[in-house]
């Protein structure tokens, strides 16, 4: 890999790059651990796991780029055949199934939460909490916006029926999103270095200049 070095963009130091890689891999692993921790609710035929909690948390805590990378890595590890998806499943079957659209929306959900937190800038715990709340709401809406049409297309249901099916998950998603709103500001306050992150080199100039 020889990326042409440019003078105007600041390079991340080797120590920072190593930390970024470790954070990305650890949050991918956290998402896997959360997906394997299933909470059984008798009302729904599908096991409810903490998977989406970890997806939203990765965006809120790691920021848009590392958060997206972490969830992308999680999906790649699952696609490679390791049983890291909800309920100990894995492999390409999960992408091919009716709920594959939700999986594919996850990196973008993390991106949206990360962008919302970054746009809010450095604020107190309350301000950060509000930014996270806005971010997780938008990200969950985005996940539905991708997941439901894919569900409808793959099952030949009409859109209204697919949305009805989707409503069954909304209460659980709301609880998980609320957990992120509580947890993310606390993690960010405990590790201020997480917010010292700059964007990847190619996209950094305007941010670094500010």
């Amino acid at each position, binding site marked *: 890999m020889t990326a042409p070095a440019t003078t105007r963009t600041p390079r991340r130091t080797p120590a920072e790059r190593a930390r970024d890689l*470790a954070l990305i891999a*650890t949050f991918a692993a956290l998402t896997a651990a959360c997906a394997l921790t299933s909470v059984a609710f008798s009302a729904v035929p599908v096991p409810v796991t903490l998977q989406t909690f970890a997806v939203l948390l990765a965006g809120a805590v790691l920021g848009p780029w590392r958060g997206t990378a972490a969830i992308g890595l999680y999906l790649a590890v699952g696609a490679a055949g*390791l049983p890291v998806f909800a309920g100990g499943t*894995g492999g*390409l079957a999960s992408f*091919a199934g009716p709920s594959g659209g939700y999986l594919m929306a996850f990196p973008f959900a993390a991106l949206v939460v990360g962008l919302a937190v970054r746009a809010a800038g450095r604020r107190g715990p309350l301000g950060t909490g509000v930014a996270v709340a806005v971010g997780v709401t938008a990200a969950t809406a985005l996940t539905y916006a991708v997941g439901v049409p894919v569900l409808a297309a793959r099952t030949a249901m009409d859109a209204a029926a697919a949305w009805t099916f989707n409503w069954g998950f909304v209460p659980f998603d709301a609880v998980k999103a609320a957990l992120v709103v509580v947890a993310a500001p606390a993690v960010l306050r405990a590790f201020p270095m997480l917010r010292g992150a700059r964007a990847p080199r*190619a996209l950094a100039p305007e941010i670094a200049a500010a």
Partner: protein
Amino acid sequence: MSRVRVATPLGLHIPGTSVVHRAPAGLKLALLAALGTVVAFVREPLPALGLLGFVAATWLLARLPLRALRQVRGVAVLLVALGAFRWWAAGPGAAVGMVAGLSAVVLAAAVVTATTPTDEIVAVLVRGLRALARVPLLGRVVVPESFALAVALVLRTVPTLLDVAQGARDAARARGVRGPRAWLLPTLLRTVGHAVRTGEAIHARGLLDTARTS
């Protein structure tokens, strides 16, 4: 050099010597993508059953044991629920067409996963990332060589985090506190702490530098 050896009892790969096992990973993934595209346009029960029969023949050709089916458990439950709904909404023909078509893709994906070692799929992903890295702007962000290291790190970290969560739960119980708040936040803080120490260890060993230059 891009092949990372992933040795784990967790994997869904089932070793074998059949034609399906020996086919190149890239070809299998391309065929799977083609099948997924075809099924998206198939609504009638007969062609859908034909596709399912074709995939089932591949399954038999690969001589896979029944335990290879465990990776489709979650999807199977969802398919039964959706099939019942479809039967009720549009009749048996539509339900059979949908369930057979989707089962064909899901089963084909399970066959690819079961007959292809994890490190070969990772190698295909790394090749894909190399192509992405050649795109001008993306080349600065995408570093294919560190991907293999990251995958290995994920596999190592999952059991560690499950231990961390268990430890935090035990500590909360020892303090006499109940509920997720008592252990969730300590788990998350220890997780980030673990990541920071791992980053320091990677830097100290210069692992990323070798990944870059090799």
